[in-house]
């Protein structure tokens, strides 16, 4: 069980901080994003493969007024979802650049071995955006 890997050492403080405050996880609750014209959902991944992610977007005008997610996955996965939700909330859809997993990994110090997981996040987010 105790293998030679150093996941915990590699965990950037940023990842730890995000992981410990997954404020955007869950559903929109009553009155949240009430003024939204519509909602959009997207999801990707499977528990058996280690990662599953859902995004819910609340859109009003050309603006993302709310971003929520649910996720099953490793700390990097959860933290990246939270970070994306925080950074996208309030942004205009027409000028939206979500970047890509490589860029996220760089910004958040996610190790290369975890890139596959970020791809699942990207799939879920793009699926939601496509429907928005």
């Amino acid at each position: 069980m105790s293998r030679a890997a150093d996941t915990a050492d590699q965990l950037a403080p940023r990842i730890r901080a995000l992981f410990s405050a997954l404020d955007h996880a869950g559903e929109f609750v009553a009155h949240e994003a009430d003024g939204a014209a519509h909602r959009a959902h997207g999801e990707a991944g499977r528990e058996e493969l280690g990662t599953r992610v859902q995004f819910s977007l609340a859109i009003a005008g050309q603006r993302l007024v709310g971003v929520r997610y649910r996720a099953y996955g490793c700390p990097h996965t959860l933290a990246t979802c939270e970070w994306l939700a925080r950074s996208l909330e309030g942004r205009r859809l027409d000028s939206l650049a979500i970047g890509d997993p490589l860029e996220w990994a760089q910004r958040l110090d996610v190790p290369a071995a975890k890139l596959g997981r970020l791809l699942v996040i990207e799939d879920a987010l793009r699926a939601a955006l496509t429907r928005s």
Partner: protein
Amino acid sequence: MSSPQTEPVYLDYAATAPVDPRVATAMSGCLTRTGVFGNPASQHHFGRLARARVEQARAQVACLIGAAPAQIIWTSGATESNNLAIFGTARAAAKAGHIVTARTEHKAVLDPCRRLEQEGWRVTYLTPDRDGIIEPLQVHEAIGADTVLVSIMHANNEIGVIQDIEAIARVCHERDLPLHVDAAQSAGKLEIDLRRCAVDLLSLTAHKLYGPKGIGALYVSPQRRARLRPLIYGGGHERGLRSGTLAVHQIVGFGLACELCVRERGEDAQRIEALRMRLWEGLRSIEGALLNGHPTRRVAGILNVSFPGVEGESLLLGLPELALSTGSACNSDSDEPSYVLRALGRDIELAQSSLRFSLGRFSCERDVEVALGAVRREVQRLRAVAP
């Protein structure tokens, strides 16, 4: 998720146990000029003092398992002992043959077996039942005309399940085959009496029984001695089976740790078992919590539980007040969940949602309460986040 104000509660005794203070004291008496610092191979005063301590420790280790001192070979730990047992037996064979082992063995057994496969050997990896048990009949059926060795562990390091080594030894004995037993997790915790059990090779390590890391032993039965090829040559120490200067302080610590186990095993086991039961009683009230491994055939200290819907690495990170291991072992080297749980037929999700709690001599009620509170909190939080 809360931050630890103090040190986390240690629940990883199966990974390594702290050295017993009595052992540490004995060790520190074998280091500097004022202690027993000689080379046991030296013929002078200091060498003789060192040799006497080494031989005393050999008797202590032998006593723990019902062996004779001359049957104990010092090694650097159970990893080396397992390698010496497996390669030592295989390389003494005239040609590549067949080995019987199990999917749930430690890597220190599986990796040497894999290496031998690359050298032309055939290896049967037995699959245990859903509880982690290997039936002696499975061993019997796997043995072929070219089988050279059977290697089955005593207690499993991830799930704590105990194999019926006596019965497996009888199967091997009938076929006149040597049995190697990795007893790293059971020695000092379960009774092992080699006078009553036809084991030929048995691996021990000190650091799981409150001795130091980096010292272990291989028990070698008199019949096997001449048929074991050394791994490490150079001077002919340990009757030629393991050369290298003997690490007196390490050996002395290992010996005393064994003696303390002989004296205190009963009490320790009872107390630790009660703590584990309390822990499991608390954890099973968490919805879906699932015990991995046989409910009763297990060592006192190890409890492995899956929490469906919760990913193990995240669960661990969310428990900073606890120090334990996960079966998901999601790490940079490998994304695979525990191969041991997979061998029990657990699906990947369950395998990656497991935690191994392991308790030991210094565990207390409070540790269990802290663990229960933390796990309840974090399972709830992560389930709330999950799809």
